[in-house]
């Protein structure tokens, strides 16, 4: 029963959501299931938080490798939580810390992309075969066509911006749609396998 019960629950919940799409009368049941999911995820958050705190406290206690890094993690976790409880999240120290520490740090991580695009391009865009050659030529055209330098000086006669727009609007769009259609069909297949209990790997079984 321990192995069958999750499959039965999955089947019932899946059918409710599928039937609701075609039958508005089922909407209250579907909304109830959605609310249950929200409640479950909130409780799961408690588990996640406990996991995070436990692992880092253990690291400090056992002086495991890189244990000093756990201090700023725990301090910032508790500091933000306590400040938000005392001063709220609309204004005050929490907002100051969020705007002046959290957002700049997120922007810093985001900005790594600029550097990584360059290093990934240097490593990956090599004409090992004709498809790779097509990829790198297209990448060069699109990269130059999307910025003003692609229309400066002699490059303006190549009309790179127009070619870029054509590439983005037609071949690129066709490929993206094909991926999305294929992915949608894949979603139907995997969903059917899970609902019918054929796919059980998410339960850890074979």
């Amino acid at each position, binding site marked *: 029963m321990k192995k069958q019960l999750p499959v039965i629950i999955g089947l019932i919940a899946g059918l409710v959501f599928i039937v609701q799409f075609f039958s508005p009368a089922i909407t209250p049941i579907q909304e109830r299931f959605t609310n249950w999911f929200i409640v479950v995820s909130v409780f799961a958050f408690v588990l996640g938080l406990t996991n995070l705190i436990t692992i880092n406290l253990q690291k400090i206690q056992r002086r495991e490798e890189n244990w000093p890094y756990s201090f700023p993690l725990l301090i910032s976790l508790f500091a933000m939580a306590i400040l938000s409880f005392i001063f709220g999240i609309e204004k005050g120290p929490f907002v100051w810390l969020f705007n002046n520490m959290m957002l700049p740090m997120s922007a810093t991580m985001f900005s790594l992309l600029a550097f990584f695009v*360059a*290093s990934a*391009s240097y490593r990956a865009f090599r004409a090992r075969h004709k498809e790779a050659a097509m990829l790198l030529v297209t990448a*060069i055209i699109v990269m130059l066509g*999307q*910025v*003003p*330098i692609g229309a*400066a000086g002699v490059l303006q006669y190549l009309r790179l911006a127009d070619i870029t727009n054509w590439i983005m609007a037609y071949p690129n769009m066709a490929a993206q749609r094909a991926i999305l259609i294929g992915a949608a069909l894949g979603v139907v297949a995997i969903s059917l396998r899970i609902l019918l209990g054929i796919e059980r790997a998410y339960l850890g079984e074979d």
Partner: protein
Amino acid sequence: MGFVKRMSGLDRRIIFVIIGLAVIIPLLIPIGLPIIPTAPARATYDAIQNLPEGSIVLFSFDYDPSTMPELQPMAIAMLYHCFTKHLKVIMIALWPQGPQMAELSMQEVNKQLEAENFPLPEYGKDYVNLGYKSAGGLVIIGMATSFAGIFPLDTYGTPISELPLMDKIKSGKELQAVVDLSAGDPGIPAWVMVSRMAGYPQPPEPGSTDITGKMYLLGGTTAVSAPGFYPYLNTNQMQGLLGGMRGAADYEKLVNKPGTAIAGMDPQSIAHLVIVLFIIMANVFFFLEKRQEKRKAT
């Protein structure tokens, strides 16, 4: 290790330093590269330009601080355009931090208008900020019936019945244009799919400037997401689209009001050029290395 092999496997830290310089130097010493607006950006500009004085435009602020660098310059340039054309603006948000984005945009626009001695738009008469409501598509559907039903109060708590602008327009069906600045979901797909079903006015025919009883649907989004919305442009479900910082720079150029987007174009151009040169260099050394290996084999 030979020079060719060393260059072929160049330490990525050298690449990072060069890219860093390629971005910093043009920021400090602007080049002023020419910006030629793309067709979608021009279409967006032409749509707003085609609206008669007094037309009401709805701006939907559907982004947050993480995408501000790309979308905020678009918001500022388009609002500047609307106010200099004496259009009226209703601001709403389908994302929680949208109302703050709208306020920050207005602060910037007011500075620009003040610098030109242009009369500042008056809150309540020329523009309103109705704030944020959750449930994206349902908000769009609800506004088609009644603004008051969805936004009984503006973001400052004032009943909209006390806002003179909201007396001129009761529902979304009376709008002349919608501008959706979106970084994700809810955003452009919601507006495209839901607005026509909900009864918003149809778009004008492609190439037509007669907008009686019609409504433009214009959008601004991040550079990564923009290609995904080209099908809407191609099928006239949208009449204009600004993509990323380039789109914002195009619009700033069209309204002749250089801002952060145009300032960002020089570093972006040089960085792209440097990456292209790296790619060419990598291929040169790749082929040289292959030739060397063939020679060694023979």
